[in-house]
């Protein structure tokens, strides 16, 4: 196991720079998830850690060693690919043993390690099968088995769950998290799915257009998004963002609707800003703002309602069951302890 330090790392293809100086510290045994929309550079960064892409600038350390010029096989990392990249002409056992065979490890040691990895992942009965004869989830497990057998310093996962169906994805999510808790190997995991990031990570790194927007524990990002991008990206359904002006009375949006807001910097009065309210932080309140119901989506445990208030659409999630019909008016009020204000120009959070 080892820590990973990424210091001012840049990547350019010719004159196009895709990663603009990224700094991330990953502690020994930590589960870090790089998350962001497609094209944000997260996979490129992962491949740079693996050594599959060279580094245009900056430094990557694995443990105490700078690995910029170390070839992939000497970096002591193992990677799980999105399409699993299992060798189709090898059995499950051979797939897992391949790296050790190349190293000319003794047969007993190979059998021992493969057996142990198979036991961890419940693959014992599949060792003689070929990848084609396996289901998606089983292939995913074999790919992880191949990584475990290596007993590397760092596990790298490149969107490992995106080829699986929704149900299996949830199940594998739990399995990967469990596996990490058992092996405690430093893990860097790339995904575009913020739910995966929220549920699995010790630390989330939100990336966008080749820079790190924010980095922190999942709930920190949820509670204190540093900017509009992170605010909109983290959380599902995503945060409602309203344009308006901060006034002493509250937050005034177009159409003269005034939203109550919590404490805000005194000098911000009169400033154009964006108000962020998470759907789950809006409550029913007969004395609150009047909003017109547009769509009601009962989910059983909760009800998702899209309303229109002062010309802006908002998504609300209520624990109560809603009987209101589209077109009817309901009263809503935000929980002012957890509203967010962002600078309309820079998008940065106005919270100190």
């Amino acid at each position, binding site marked *: 196991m080892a820590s990973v330090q990424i210091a001012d790392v840049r990547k350019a293809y010719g004159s196009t720079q895709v990663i603009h100086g990224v700094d991330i510290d990953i502690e020994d045994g930590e589960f870090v998830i790089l998350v962001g929309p497609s094209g944000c550079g997260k996979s490129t960064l992962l491949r740079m850690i*693996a*050594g*599959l892409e060279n580094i245009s600038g900056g430094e990557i350390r694995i443990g105490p060693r700078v690995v910029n010029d170390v070839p*992939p*096989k000497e970096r002591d*990392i*193992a*990677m799980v*690919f*999105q*399409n699993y*990249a*299992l*060798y*189709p*002409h*090898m059995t499950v056992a051979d797939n897992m043993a*391949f*790296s050790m065979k*190349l*190293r000319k490890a003794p047969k007993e040691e190979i059998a021992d390690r493969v057996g142990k990895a198979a036991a961890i992942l419940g693959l014992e009965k599949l060792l003689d099968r*070929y*990848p*084609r*004869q396996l*289901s*998606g989830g089983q292939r995913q497990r074999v790919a992880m088995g*191949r990584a475990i057998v*290596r007993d590397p310093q760092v596990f790298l996962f490149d969107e490992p769950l995106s080829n699986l169906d929704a149900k299996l994805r949830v199940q594998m999510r739990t399995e990967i998290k469990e596996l990490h808790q058992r092996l405690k190997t430093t893990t860097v995991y790339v995904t575009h799915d913020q739910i995966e990031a929220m549920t699995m990570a010790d630390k989330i790194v939100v990336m966008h257009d080749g820079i790190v927007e924010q980095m922190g524990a999942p709930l920190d990002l949820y509670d204190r998004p540093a900017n509009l991008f992170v605010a909109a990206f983290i959380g599902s359904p995503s945060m409602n963002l309203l344009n308006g002006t901060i006034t002493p009375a509250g937050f005034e949006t177009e159409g003269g609707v005034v939203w109550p807001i919590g404490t805000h910097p005194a000098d911000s009065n009169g400033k154009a800003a964006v108000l962020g309210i998470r759907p789950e932080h809006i409550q029913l309140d007969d004395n609150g703002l009047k909003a017109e119901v547009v769509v009601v989506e009962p989910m059983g445990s909760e009800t998702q309602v899209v309303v229109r208030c002062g010309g802006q659409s908002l998504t609300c999630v209520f624990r109560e069951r809603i009987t209101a019909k589209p077109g009817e008016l309901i009263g809503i009020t935000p929980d002012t302890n957890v509203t967010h204000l962002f600078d309309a120009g820079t998008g940065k959070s106005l919270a100190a």
Partner: protein
Amino acid sequence: MASGSFAAQPETTAWTRLMVNRNWLGFWFMVPTMIFLLFFLAWPLILGMWMSMTDMRIGRGGVFIGLENYQYLLEDRDFLNATGFTLAYTAVASVVKFAVGLYLAILLNNHMPLKAFIRAIVLIPFIVPTVLSAVAFWWIFDTQFSIFTWLLQKAGFLAKGQYINWLGDPFLAQCSVIFANIWRGIPFIAITLLAGLQTVSPSLYEAATLDGASGWQRFRFVTYPLLTPIIAVVMTFSVLFTFTDFQLIWAMTRGGPVNATQLMATLSYQRGILGGRLGEGAAIATAMVPFLLAAIMISWFGLQRRKWQQGESND
């Protein structure tokens, strides 16, 4: 049962039953193809085999003489030499074509500038008509004007005024026609293998790299095993085409000098058509069949779906 009502219809004959029976429907659909195959493939083959057992000549219907033609051929040095050279021609040309073709395919599979253009160039030997390229090789291996001779002279390996009798010397002529065949056959193999290489997912190479495989090991343990099915197909075709080659030899040497470059196909043509002994020519052609069958059998076993290709493919 409903059959009672069918029986009541007097016009139901065995023939109309056959026409409406679902099990026979498939057969009826196959009939046109069967006729086509019988007429254009089976019939000429059978006719050829029949002819090989007669002493038929041009303008004179033959008499059945059993295996006499074959008996005669077994003692015929020219035939035995032609058979030997056909085997050597096929073996040497196929091995070299495979090696160079695979090398080119791997080279072309890399990223390089003008990739599409270079791929197109590689195809040139394949698109030039055989006879045309044979004529070009005729000049390339000309005794006086050979570019190889000229190059050797320029490089100082050959004194000025000294010539190499490329197509006149039996052994050199054999090497020359094999060279021409290789030149012509490489694109087919290179392009087909390139197509095969492109189906190999790049992430497999990346996974192998991370697993610690060197370039050679990636080829040996990933590329080569994944290519074996397509190698089996392409080499079967290559062997069949090479073994039955005719045009190149005929245009370059007509089997000469002293029958050194005679292939079974050219010998058959020479004896049967030019010499007029149709029965003997047919016997030589028929003698090629066992070799071709053997090649097909080998590839048939090679082509059988390997275990790793079986099972449902839900990817």
